[in-house]
């Protein structure tokens, strides 16, 4: 794999994960457990979709086949989507929503932090802005994991269940493949070992404070997302998210 190929692939991964998690949060509009949460969820979703747009725009320039950011977001099918499996998991209850957010935010925060020092200036620039947002996201989701883990008996039970349900999708966040390694070697992407270490460290720290038990480090992990092999959920997410673009392919302006 050439560095140029890996870069395009890597940008799509960053974009797709942001986009799909943002879409999941959009589904919660009007359904949050409190009005303050309503605002915060939409705020996080807005940040994520905004970041996705930045990554898509850069990816579109490099791919250079006439597709723009919108085409990349709304006209690729599931097998071309490169998001982490974690991000496409359903909202379920608020413990799952927050657990998913927390696992992602830890990964996102350390990834972006490293990307601010990327040898690719465009990436470093996008990451610098995104890191500010992700720092807030992480603080918020960590707090919620602690509240729910160390709140009531019911919330503890639900939060532990959420951790157990989601754990099998977390390995993908910190297990590098060729693309990740090429990016790291080029000084563009984060060092995979460091990312894994940072992720584990912070996840363990917060879960311990939250009186929760993480899954086993050697647990079986599902890892197809980065290569376009998804769970059954993504097809439905895209069917909804891409409805207008598919139903009205001749429409060029909206």
């Amino acid at each position, binding site marked *: 794999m050439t560095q140029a190929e890996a870069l395009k692939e890597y940008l799509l991964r960053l974009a797709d994960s942001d986009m799909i998690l943002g*879409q999941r949060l*959009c*589904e919660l*509009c*009007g*359904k*949050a*457990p*409190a*009005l*303050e*949460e*309503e*605002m915060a969820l*939409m*705020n996080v*979703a*807005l940040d994520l*979709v*905004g970041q*996705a*747009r930045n990554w*898509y725009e850069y990816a579109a320039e490099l791919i250079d086949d006439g597709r723009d*950011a*919108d085409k990349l*977001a*709304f006209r690729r099918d599931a097998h071309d989507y490169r998001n982490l499996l974690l991000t496409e998991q359903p909202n379920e*209850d*608020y413990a799952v929503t927050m657990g998913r957010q927390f696992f992602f935010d830890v990964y996102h925060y350390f990834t972006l932090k490293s990307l601010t020092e990327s040898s690719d200036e465009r990436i470093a620039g996008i990451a610098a802005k995104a890191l500010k947002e992700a720092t807030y996201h992480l603080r918020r989701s960590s707090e919620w994991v*602690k*509240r*729910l883990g*160390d*709140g*009531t008996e*019911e*919330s503890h039970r*639900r939060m532990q269940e959420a951790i157990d349900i989601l754990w099998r999708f977390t390995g993908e966040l910190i297990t590098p493949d060729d693309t990740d390694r090429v990016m790291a070697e080029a000084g563009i992407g984060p060092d995979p070992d460091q990312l894994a270490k940072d992720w584990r460290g912070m996840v363990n720290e917060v879960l311990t404070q939250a009186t929760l038990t993480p899954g086993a480090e050697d647990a079986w992990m599902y890892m197809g997302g980065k290569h376009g092999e998804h769970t059954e959920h993504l097809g439905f997410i895209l069917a*909804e*998210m891409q*409805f*207008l*673009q598919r139903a*009205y392919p*001749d*429409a*060029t*302006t*909206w």
Partner: protein
Amino acid sequence: MYAQLVETGAKRLKTKEEMSPEEREFHEKVDAETKIEPKNWMPEGYRKTLVRQISQHAHSEVVGMLPEGNWVTRAPTLKRKLQLMAKIQDEAGHGLYLYSAMETLGADRDEEIEKLHQGKAKYSSIFNYPTLNWADMGAVGWLVDGAAIVNQVVLQRTSYGPYSRAMIRICKEESFHQRQGYQILLDMMREGTEEQKAMVQDAINRLWWPALMMFGPHDDESPNSQQSMAWKIKRKSNDELRQMFIDQTVPQLEFLGCTAPDPDLKWNEETGHYDFGEINWQEFYDVLKGNGPCNRERIKTRKNAIDEGAWVREAAVAYAEKQKQRAQAA
């Protein structure tokens, strides 16, 4: 906006002689355009009316997120998706801000929300209509936010200080939403396919009358309006506001190249205003009573969100309590 038919408890207006000294002083303040602040004496009817109006307004902001939530997962471009998300976030913020203003009157947010879920509190009837195609996101911004602004611009001068200040802040954001909504429609009409243009006209056909209903019933049928006007909670009559809205909206409609579903709509040279047909009041009262196309779904969604989130809020309280005890023990 979003307050229609606010009950004031008044059958007729009191004369000066019938008022207590406190009440007279209150009225002099109101007449002199001095804002009433939370700590000032106010008639109980004034307080209750404001609680009803502001809570209706807050409920409307929150319920109003649902018809947009219906399309935020299906927005056609990244730009439009982000705009709609920002608008929804603003609305949640308006809701919070208005509930706070309401709480300065001694009302409790949870209690008022409970009344909404029991079907005892109103919210704007417009949100009981479905959003059926993407152009509805433009039409809601243009017509619904547009109607709200006409009302709220006047409410910036309302006699109760915290409400007035909330309106000033909210109006700025609503104006932005309205322009964005209009732009959605304009872009589809100018550069869209025939199918897209049909969506725009369809959205207008469905939302035109419900938007006019947002201003409430004719004033001569409402003793509540007169009392609210005397208290300067309300500053202009329902019919005046509706006329203002129509006069400013029809030229925009024509500029779009669309039509209104009202054969009686035409410019009246003599009055300098547009004439328009009679609203279907039976529909209006029915939707208000709970028989609109989406009343049940809207309330059910809101009720489920709060009911199913109870354990989350309880956990937050329990955790905060534990943290407090730990801090004290340390």
